[in-house]
């Protein structure tokens, strides 16, 4: 969620004048009778860092491979820069892909791997050499230029793959789970490197990842996919704070889902009756809700305050019994049971050392949250 710089004006998707770099128009891809991509329509803009997120087998790689030209859509068209790329073979597209397996040429040195794409373009020797050393510097691989891929570490290999795909300065760079094999430290470091490269080169990135934290860190926008469909496309903050469905809310981060019936309240708010005898939840819907409609209330654990007394500055309160505590160092997660039997988890930062030790198992505590802390979902 490091939407870092204050110049948060980069939002071409909100600008109707802006032409997308990539446009999927009703794209469907079938393998035999199996539909891997189902009627996908999606725009990706220039200079975006676009993340694809979704469970295994939902079609992320298939999407990338269609962009790179290794698969052709069964139906629909893909436009890159306004041109239908359907008939264009992979070697004629200004798109480079960094393969999940890196796909480094084992018989070539690091240097030759990086130069491989440049040499295909009949560029003159000295400018190739310049570009290669620039890439080596960028990925901090100067020392390994003469080595073969099997003589360097996994993380270095990954940087070679990145340098190789960047070398041709493609309009569009596709990264298929590029950091999957790295340890946490190296991964975070490389994520920032990627963002840095993106800022310097202005290339458009599409990245596939299984790691939602990674998507949140690097992406300008995130697409959450399921079964070949895009469920929601939004900024990381948007996806996290205002998921459009229980699926998205559940997929990104931890969430409490409380189902109930909505009843209108003052000021456009609603009350969600979720259990007999329990105080209804006061919530702010994003869309109009009919009286008596079934809704799901999604609230993140960190938005619920746990205390001995109800917090009267917040609109909602409920009693809860602590059934489990997970101490994670910087935060603690409390698993609680409401009188209605509903299970809820809440998260508190451990600001003071061992401060929250005063809550323990079976304690009766109060949960408080504001009327805007959660999202009302209808599906």
């Amino acid at each position, binding site marked *: 969620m490091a939407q870092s710089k204050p110049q948060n004006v980069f939002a071409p998707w909100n600008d109707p004048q802006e032409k997308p770099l990539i446009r999927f128009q009703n794209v469907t891809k079938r393998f035999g009778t199996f539909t891997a991509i189902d009627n996908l329509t999606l725009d990706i803009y220039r200079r975006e860092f676009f993340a694809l997120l979704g469970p295994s087998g939902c079609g992320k790689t298939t999407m990338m491979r269609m962009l790179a030209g290794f698969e052709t859509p069964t139906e629909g068209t893909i436009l890159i820069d306004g041109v239908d790329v359907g008939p264009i073979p992979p070697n004629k597209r200004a798109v480079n892909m960094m393969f999940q*397996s890196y*796909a480094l*040429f084992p*018989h070539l040195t690091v240097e030759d791997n990086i130069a491989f*794409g440049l040499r295909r373009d009949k560029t003159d020797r000295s400018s190739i050499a310049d570009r290669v050393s620039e890439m080596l510097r960028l990925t901090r691989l100067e020392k390994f230029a003469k080595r073969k891929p099997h003589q360097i570490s996994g993380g270095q290999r990954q940087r070679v793959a990145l340098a190789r795909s960047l070398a041709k300065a493609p309009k569009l760079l596709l990264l298929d789970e590029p950091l999957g094999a790295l340890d946490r430290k190296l991964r975070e470091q490389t994520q920032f490197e990627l963002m840095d490269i993106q800022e310097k080169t202005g290339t458009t990135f599409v990245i596939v990842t299984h790691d939602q934290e990674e998507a949140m860190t690097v992406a300008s926008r995130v697409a959450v996919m399921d079964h070949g469909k895009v469920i929601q496309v939004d900024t990381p903050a948007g996806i996290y704070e205002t998921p459009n469905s229980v699926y998205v809310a559940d997929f990104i981060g931890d969430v409490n889902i409380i189902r109930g019936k909505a009843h209108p309240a003052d000021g456009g708010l609603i009350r969600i009756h979720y259990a007999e005898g329990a105080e209804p939840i006061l919530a702010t819907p994003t869309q109009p809700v009919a009286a008596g409609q079934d809704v799901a209330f999604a609230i993140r654990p960190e938005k619920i305050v746990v205390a001995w007394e109800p917090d009267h500055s917040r609109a909602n309160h409920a009693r809860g019994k602590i059934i489990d505590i997970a101490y994670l160092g910087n935060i603690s997660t409390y698993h609680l049971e409401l009188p209605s039997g509903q299970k809820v988890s809440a998260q508190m930062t451990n600001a003071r050392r061992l401060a929250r030790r005063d809550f323990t198992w079976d304690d009766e505590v109060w949960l408080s949250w504001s009327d805007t802390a959660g999202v009302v979902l209808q599906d």
Partner: protein
Amino acid sequence: MNLRRVTLIALPYLWLLGFFLVPFLIVLKIALSDTAVAIPPYTPTLDLSGGWAAIRDFFGQLDFENFTWLTEDELYWKSYLSSVRIAAISTFITLLVGYPIAYAMAQSPDEWRPTLMMLVILPFWTSFLIRVYAWIGILSNEGFLNQFLLWTGLIDTPLTIMNTTTAVYVGIVYTYLPFMILPIYAALEKLDGSLIEAAEDLGCSRLSAFWLVTLPLSRPGVIAGCFLVFIPALGEFVIPSLLGGSQTLMIGKVLWEEFFSNRDWPVASAVAVVLLLLLIIPIVLFQKNQQRQQEAEQ
């Protein structure tokens, strides 16, 4: 524990000693002897009952006469040369035929591969001799090939293929093709398909991706296949004598004739020893290649 290890290491050496070194020494000894009208047809023979004097006398009679003879009669070095040439050319033809077959096998759907592999090995299930005889039936003037070509009207007099070097090439290429296909196939099958995609992604056409990625990565298989064909082809005797007739000069055939037609065991043994020395060079190179490949895989 040490005894176990010593035994394990000693076993292959004992095997080599018993089945290679001892026979080789016997052949070498015969090569250093003279012909004689006797059984066995050479002299001297070692008579241990004679004591030290007899042994000294025995070694005194050994000489390099036969090896000198090999350099004097041009038949021998011409045969060696011709063998190397025929083996090299047929290795090359085998490569040209075998590579596309191996490539096609590696590209075929997974479920087809075991069957294709079977088909490549299938000829080994019949006797080598029968297969070579079958080629006589195909290549001779009245053979199937000529009959077929006459029938199609492509030719009006039968082609003379039997008893020419061409027939020898056909025989060697046919016989040793599996030895070329299998190592190349093994190399190509291991090849990661995403490497080809990566090459195309970086701007290669299909053809240049093959030339820049597939071919270099299958090189160890190509080298292994070439040696596996070249080494046995060099000493080949059955194919040139059955298909090549008197025209083809190959050292294997000369060797056979020295042994069985001339009954000149010492000269035949000398020929064999020189052939072995000739073969050592490619065998050592082959070993080097295998070793390098294994190291690269680690």
